[in-house]
């Protein structure tokens, strides 16, 4: 009874054998470090190149507390994203609570980078486009590193979206609260929804 099953398993393992398979079989710690370094390099590098060290160093302490708390929030999202399958799964309620917590923490982090004024909306959609464009390759890498790529992956989507937000936070000159909440937090929500949509499509395709 188990022989045909074993043959099917071997076929699965053979299909898994390329570079993607090699990436997925790296230990959880290795994959997490690779993901974290890439995310920080992309968002930090983008910030450094686009805003320049002079403008970045002119920011207030509160601004940097906001940026650091966004990095910590990213850390939580990444830990949830890489939670191995051999650990007990969280219940649906716990997962929803964690998603809500990460969302609230990112909103607070974004708000902390404000200059204290409400400001104008100053929206051209640029922050949304740039943020989503930065989140997309991160999402692609997260898919490659994911041992269960064909799943909805809310935490994967959240993480990728928030990397885009972090990059935009470092570069965007608008510091009014309205712009930050509408456009930057909107970017977090929108890109998460977009990447969740891709996850749903992949999951349906796999069925």
């Amino acid at each position, binding site marked *: *009874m*188990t022989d045909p*099953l*074993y043959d*099917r*398993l071997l076929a*699965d*393992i053979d299909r*898994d054998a390329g570079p993607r*398979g090699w990436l*997925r*079989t*790296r*230990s*959880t710690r*290795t994959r997490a470090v690779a993901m974290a370094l890439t995310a920080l390099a992309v968002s930090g590098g983008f910030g450094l190149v686009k805003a320049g060290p002079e403008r970045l160093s002119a920011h207030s302490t509160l601004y940097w507390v906001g940026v650091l708390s966004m990095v910590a929030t990213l850390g939580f999202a990444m830990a949830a994203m890489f939670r*191995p*399958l*051999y*650990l*007990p*799964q969280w*219940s649906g309620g716990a997962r929803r609570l964690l998603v809500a917590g990460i969302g609230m923490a990112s909103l607070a982090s974004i708000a902390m980078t404000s200059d204290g004024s409400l400001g104008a909306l100053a929206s051209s959609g640029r922050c949304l486009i740039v943020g989503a464009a930065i989140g997309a390759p991160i999402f692609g890498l997260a898919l490659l590193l994911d*041992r*269960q790529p064909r*799943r909805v992956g809310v935490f994967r989507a959240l993480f990728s979206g928030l990397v885009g937000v972090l990059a935009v936070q470092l570069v965007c000159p608008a510091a009014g609260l309205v712009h930050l909440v509408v456009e930057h937090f909107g970017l977090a929500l929108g890109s998460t929804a977009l990447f969740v949509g891709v996850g749903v499509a992949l999951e349906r395709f796999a069925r």
Partner: protein
Amino acid sequence: MGTTDEQLMQAYVAGDANAHRALFERLAPVLLHVARRQLRDEAEAEDVVQRAFLAVHRARNDFRAGAKVRPWVFTITMNLVRDTFRRRKRQREAPLELDGRRDPSETPADPVERQQEASLVHRALDALPESQRRAIELHWLEDRPFSEIANLEGASVSAVKVRAHRGYKRMRTYIETEKAAGRT
């Protein structure tokens, strides 16, 4: 003294294909039994076991010396069973044969009556919240100790005991109510 699961796993991580096959032959029947019990669908149970071993293959570099293989593989399987349930988004429907490990004192002698009793017990089990049902199935039907169930569920031993206790209580009430209403 035969080779332990852990020795086989370490050999497999080191690249020994025979150790992989031996580990599969040793664990797959146990996992299939568990998956069949939970899912009540042969094809889905086989699919879960296949995916579980693929997950083991992908996660083999996470396996640490000194860790136990069975709880590790069993947790993967249970998580995939839950994924399958989530995907189905519906309650199980298929009837289930009674397991031979039940308390014989509770089993009626008449086969028809026994079948009715089995059906009633399974309806009672199905009516439980998922966490209570899992605790009872693992403890009662799979004969697993509470310490192991706690490990699998990621909960404390006392929490798992409370779930099982509450589940048994609810099942008893359900069965009494159904019997009183003549719905056996």
